């Protein structure tokens, strides 16, 4: 994975963008466009070639087909208007109103008003340049001018590269955050162009109000009007069905001036035109949200579904983190056959993708799973989910449940970029649920619907956030989807909204979502040993979230309500204590300080796996999301708790250190987190000296041998999981070398292999030493030592005496003997002499020392008792076994 930080050259470019370095002029740009599009296209895009628009658009549509059919269609439809800007908007190219857009897909914006007033060829040409540049970063190799870069498969990394390339090659200075907010080439062109020409009109976003495809009735479009209404105080609530842009704009701006807005504590993004700092949603996003909400009103009225557990259900998002776990839970806890909608070209590819994803999340993908799953290639962003009419119709009549888990989870992208997946996709599922046989729709929403900085409560029935206070596109899209589906409830549709908070890794398998924010935060906490002063983390492990969600889906009496699947929140104290328990003492910092510090550390020592966290912490809108998440109150889940109790499910438990252990291990395996390691500053250490004799194999042990070792642990993890202690120090034995030998690598295992004797008998293993030694002449040696527990009364000696074998590296043992820790040094060195990491406080040091002594004492006690227990059992076995006494034989 490439990252901005990996490439200083690219960063320099990005910085030059920040400084606002100039680039090519418009004419040079257009020259480039001509070169790029070829002669045929030039005739269509030249400044004086207005009449050639049709040709130009045809060339565009064929040269730069979109990533999928609707997008391609969209570019084909839009281009004529863009290429013929000076025409008055006729019925074929309405400026703002969009009544006749039946054949358009949901992603297809209509021609825009500003092109009437500006030399829109520039905009179109520029959009083509941007699209061509963007296409090079996409899997498909091309991008339609009005298709979303991220929807077409672009990633955050690609976006960074694209911005650098646009600036470097064409002088188009697009802010990275602008790309995240709305990554359609046409929009980027429109946003950049006015900066060259300040007289250029701001695009009127109302013109790009979307329309639904022809499968839904179209009553709402009539309410979309170009006439600015007087600024009457319309309720700006979600239920407002008239997405009229002008009054809302007026209202929002009035609000903005009337209410004091606290100054943002995080640095704002580079100013984008007239917009203020990131305390309010962008007006064009709000307009779009309201327009999207109105789409719900086109749903038909639905009857009540049969109250039976599902037998055939459709699941979207089965390749995702939560969806994959829910798929397995649905199969385990119901008898349902599951249809999985998977984005792929054909069924074979879809099946392969699903299998690969399930395995990646450590879930089974066997013939037993496959026999209960039907994979449908499709795309939630497309009308009818990209399914054939016949299949759509069949599903509408056969399915008895629809479960929508699919969503684009990206905290950097804007609403415009996320809406087709997160909002329109949810509405398409509602359409499917309402069509044919009545069936409930279970929608995975998110606690993000409350993600407003300063919200006071997040109960299941509490009011959602104010949408104009939701800054990040992800929060907006989840809010819009849930509110749209609330409207669908008014049409009789049974909609269950299941709102997970942070979804932590699986408590048993450690499977996690590596690009999830909570994975990144946990990794950063452990890696840098600092935490921001958050209020609480509303996170629950994926296994619990999935299990409860599935229980609600399978229980008809649970349908139709809202559930917060947030589990028991972790407070700051909980997290700090959990980490201390694992030997990773963290320090709490103020949020801004933590962010600056973490970014500085990520810059100084880049961790590719955490690059996404760096991007989130730099993005002003994503920052608002993180800030709201960290400062929000604990989410309430009374209805969920009641459901869990009534169905006898595992009740929510805090996602504590033990539950997170597997996930943390896997995060460390994947390179995100970092476990304490041998070469770190030790957590705790003490010295051990031993004295004794060794001799050649078969001869008496007469040569003195002594060891001066330092035993240390880097954290409690290695004790509990590996039962291992690190060793450094020296071994002096003249039979090997006159000079002392250095321990290059040393380990001690406590009760290795559970103490199982190496050979049949009562000699149990207590400790195993394995040292790699280097002598002064560079010779390499190995030393293997064991302490044994026997059923004998010399317990004190058993804990101190070490039987050793020494040999040259790669050879058999040449020396055997025994060394013993002198009785007088044992307590002095190994109890009184314990040292703890000086960075810890006195209390932490005492706790660390006590934990070590308790753990080690208990292990040694168990080890010493084992042979005695066997001897005692042998004695008991001498008792006569009575003859059978039961009478009813």
């Amino acid at each position, binding site marked *: 994975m490439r990252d901005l930080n990996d490439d200083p050259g690219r960063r320099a470019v990005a910085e030059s963008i920040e400084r606002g370095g100039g680039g090519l002029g418009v004419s040079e740009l257009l020259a480039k466009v001509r070169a790029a599009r070829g002669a045929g296209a030039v005739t269509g895009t030249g400044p004086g070639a207005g009449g050639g628009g049709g040709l130009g658009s045809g060339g565009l549509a064929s040269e730069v087909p979109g990533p999928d059919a609707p997008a391609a269609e969209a570019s084909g439809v839009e281009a004529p208007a863009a290429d013929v800007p000076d025409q008055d908007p006729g019925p074929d190219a309405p400026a703002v109103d969009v009544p006749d857009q039946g054949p358009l897909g949901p992603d297809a914006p209509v021609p825009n008003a500003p092109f009437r007033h500006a030399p829109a060829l520039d905009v179109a040409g520029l959009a083509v340049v941007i699209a061509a540049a963007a296409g090079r970063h996409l899997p498909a190799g091309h991008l339609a001018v009005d298709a979303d870069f991220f929807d077409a498969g672009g990633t955050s990394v690609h976006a960074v590269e694209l911005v650098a390339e646009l600036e470097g090659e064409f002088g188009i200075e697009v802010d990275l955050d602008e790309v995240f907010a709305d990554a359609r080439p046409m929009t980027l062109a429109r946003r950049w162009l006015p900066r060259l020409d300040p007289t250029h009109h701001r695009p009127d976003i109302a013109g790009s109000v979307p329309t639904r495809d022809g499968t839904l009735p179209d009553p709402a479009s009539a309410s979309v009007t170009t006439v600015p209404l007087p600024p009457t105080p319309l309720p700006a609530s979600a239920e407002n069905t008239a997405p009229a842009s002008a009054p809302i704009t007026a209202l929002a701006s009035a609000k903005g001036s009337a209410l004091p807005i606290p100054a943002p504590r995080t640095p704002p993004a580079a100013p984008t035109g007239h917009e203020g700092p990131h305390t309010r949603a962008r007006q064009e996003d709000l307009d779009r949200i309201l327009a999207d909400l109105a789409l719900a009103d086109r749903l038909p009225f639905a009857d009540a579904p049969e109250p039976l557990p599902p037998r055939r259900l459709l699941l979207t998002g089965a390749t995702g983190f939560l969806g994959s776990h829910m798929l397995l839970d649905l199969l385990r806890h119901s008898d349902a056959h599951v249809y999985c909608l998977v984005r792929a070209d054909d069924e074979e590819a879809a099946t392969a993708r699903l299998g690969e994803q399930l395995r990646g999340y450590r879930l089974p993908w*066997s*013939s*037993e799973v496959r026999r209960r799953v039907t994979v449908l290639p499709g795309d939630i962003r497309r009308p009818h989910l990209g399914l054939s009419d016949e299949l759509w119709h069949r599903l509408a009549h056969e399915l008895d449940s629809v479960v929508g888990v699919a969503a684009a989870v990206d905290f950097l992208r804007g609403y415009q970029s996320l809406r087709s997946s997160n909002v329109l996709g949810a509405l398409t599922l509602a359409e499917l649920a309402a069509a044919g046989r009545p069936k409930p729709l279970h929608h995975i929403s998110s606690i993000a619907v409350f993600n407003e900085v300063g919200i006071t409560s997040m109960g299941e029935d509490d009011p959602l956030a104010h949408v104009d206070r939701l800054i990040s596109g992800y929060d907006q899209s989840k809010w819009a989807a849930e509110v749209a589906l609330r409207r669908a409830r008014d049409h009789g549709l049974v909609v269950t909204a299941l709102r997970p908070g942070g979804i932590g890794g699986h408590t048993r398998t450690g499977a996690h979502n590596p690009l999830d924010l909570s994975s990144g935060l946990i990794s950063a906490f452990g890696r840098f040993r600092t935490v921001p002063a958050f209020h609480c983390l509303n996170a629950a492990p994926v296994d619990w979230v999935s299990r409860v969600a599935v229980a609600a889906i399978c229980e008809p009496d649970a349908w139709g309500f809202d559930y917060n699947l947030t589990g028991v929140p972790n407070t700051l104290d909980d997290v700090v204590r959990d980490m201390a328990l694992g030997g990773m003492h963290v320090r709490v910092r103020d949020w801004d300080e933590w962010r600056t510090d973490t970014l500085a550390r990520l810059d100084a020592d880049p961790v590719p796996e955490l690059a996404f966290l760096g991007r989130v912490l730099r993005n002003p809108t994503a920052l608002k999301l993180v800030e709201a998440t960290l400062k929000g109150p604990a989410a309430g889940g009374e209805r969920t708790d009641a459901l869990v109790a009534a169905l006898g499910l595992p009740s929510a438990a805090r996602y504590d250190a033990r539950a997170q252990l597997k996930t943390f291990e896997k995060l460390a395996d994947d390179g995100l987190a970092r476990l304490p390691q041998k070469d770190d500053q030790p957590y705790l250490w003490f010295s051990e000296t031993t004295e004794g004799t060794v001799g050649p194999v078969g001869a008496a042990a007469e040569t003195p041998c002594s060891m001066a070792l330092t035993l240390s642990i880097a954290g409690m993890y290695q004790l509990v999981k590996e039962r291992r202690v690190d060793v450094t120090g020296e071994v002096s034995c003249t039979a090997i070398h006159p000079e002392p030998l250095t321990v290059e690598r040393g380990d001690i295992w406590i009760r290795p292999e*559970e103490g199982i004797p190496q050979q049949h008998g009562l000699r149990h293993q207590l400790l195993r030493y394995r040292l790699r030694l280097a002598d002064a002449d560079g010779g390499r040696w190995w030393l293997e030592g064991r302490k044994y527990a026997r059923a004998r009364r010399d317990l004190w000696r058993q804990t101190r005496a070490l039987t050793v074998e020494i040999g040259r590296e790669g050879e058999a043992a040449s020396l055997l003997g025994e060394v013993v820790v002198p009785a007088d040094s044992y307590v002095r060195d190994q109890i009184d002499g314990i040292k703890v990491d000086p960075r810890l406080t006195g209390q932490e040091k005492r706790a660390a020392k006590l934990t070590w002594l308790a753990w080690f004492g208990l292990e040694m006690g168990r080890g010493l008792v084992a042979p005695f227990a066997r001897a005692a059992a042998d004695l008991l*076995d001498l008792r006569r076994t009575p003859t059978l006494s039961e009478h*009813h034989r």
Partner: protein
Amino acid sequence: MIFRTTSFRTTPARTTRPALRKVRSTAALRPLRHRLDPAAVEEIPLRTSDGVLLGLTRVGTGHSDRPAVLVLHGHTASADMFLLPETRNLVDVLLDEGYEPWLLDWRGSCRLPYNETGRRYTYDDVALYDIPEAVCRIRQRIGDRPLFVIAHCIGSLSLSLSLTAGLVPGLAGVVSQGVFLTPKLAGRTSLRISVMGELLKSRIDYIPVDFRKVGLWSKYTPLFALASRGASCPDPTCQILHNSAWGSGASLFVHENLSEATHERLAELLGPAPLWILPHLRRIELARSVVRWHDTDHRYRALPPNALDAAGRIDTPVLLLAGSENGLWQDSQKLCHEVLAHRQPQLDVRYTEIPGYGHLDTFLGRGAALDVYGHILDFLGERR
């Protein structure tokens, strides 16, 4: 001492009919419960060379070229545990994947009466007679076709003793669930087994699991009362199994993983546990390795004194399976994998952990086909 008080009946309740002493008839197997075609289920009488009648069942398919799979149940369970009619069971899955299942009811089966009456045995007998003679009988029928073994719990532990004694050579593969060469119980369970065994062995022969068979007021009442402490399920049979594993305090399965029908049938699926087996079990557990009980009886000299020391004789690939929540044998399988990897690196041994599963539910669980059998099929498929 509560068991000495006369308050608790030490003679059978008046309602318990005395069994007629068997003079001419012998032990009879309780019929299997399944939903297979009765014609496909062939019961093969098997009497071991020490004179014990066992049950061997072949599920025929009409094909004579399928690899055979012998399935061994755990102690006090029976072949019924692989034939649950209410879920997708192991036999269904094996049949669909082209195998020929063979089910052995060894002498610890609850379809047979030996746990309650009849002669006592140790796991040495199972390893020396039951498993090798069943394998021999199957081989007579299947000829050169590959033979796999899937073994659960004590079935697997006994199989490890047979394998290391070289009594069942040439298997195509072994799947071991729960425990294999290195049995490990939680310290608390081990202590309770030892103490309870010593206290009760002169008073009762076995620990029942079916409350309906012993009545509300009997000498077993305190055991059921102890087992109910802290239990989440009101069913006494479930309490003594799920919450206490025959009084040992361990948990046999994850409650949520059983279907309701299976939960209702627990008393049929798992029988009473004999107390006289505890000394052998204790010796094995304290040694953390499978050890022979009979040191002076030369009939058993074919068995190694310590199976772990003789693990080098294992001549077949082994898949060690275990539920991550195994409340009885803990992480014995993981330990076994570690120990064998270190001491016998030449062996083909792999370990798979089933997340969220306990001990018995790896076969009885309603989702076992989804979560467990896939691993078994993968293993068998690679070697068929």
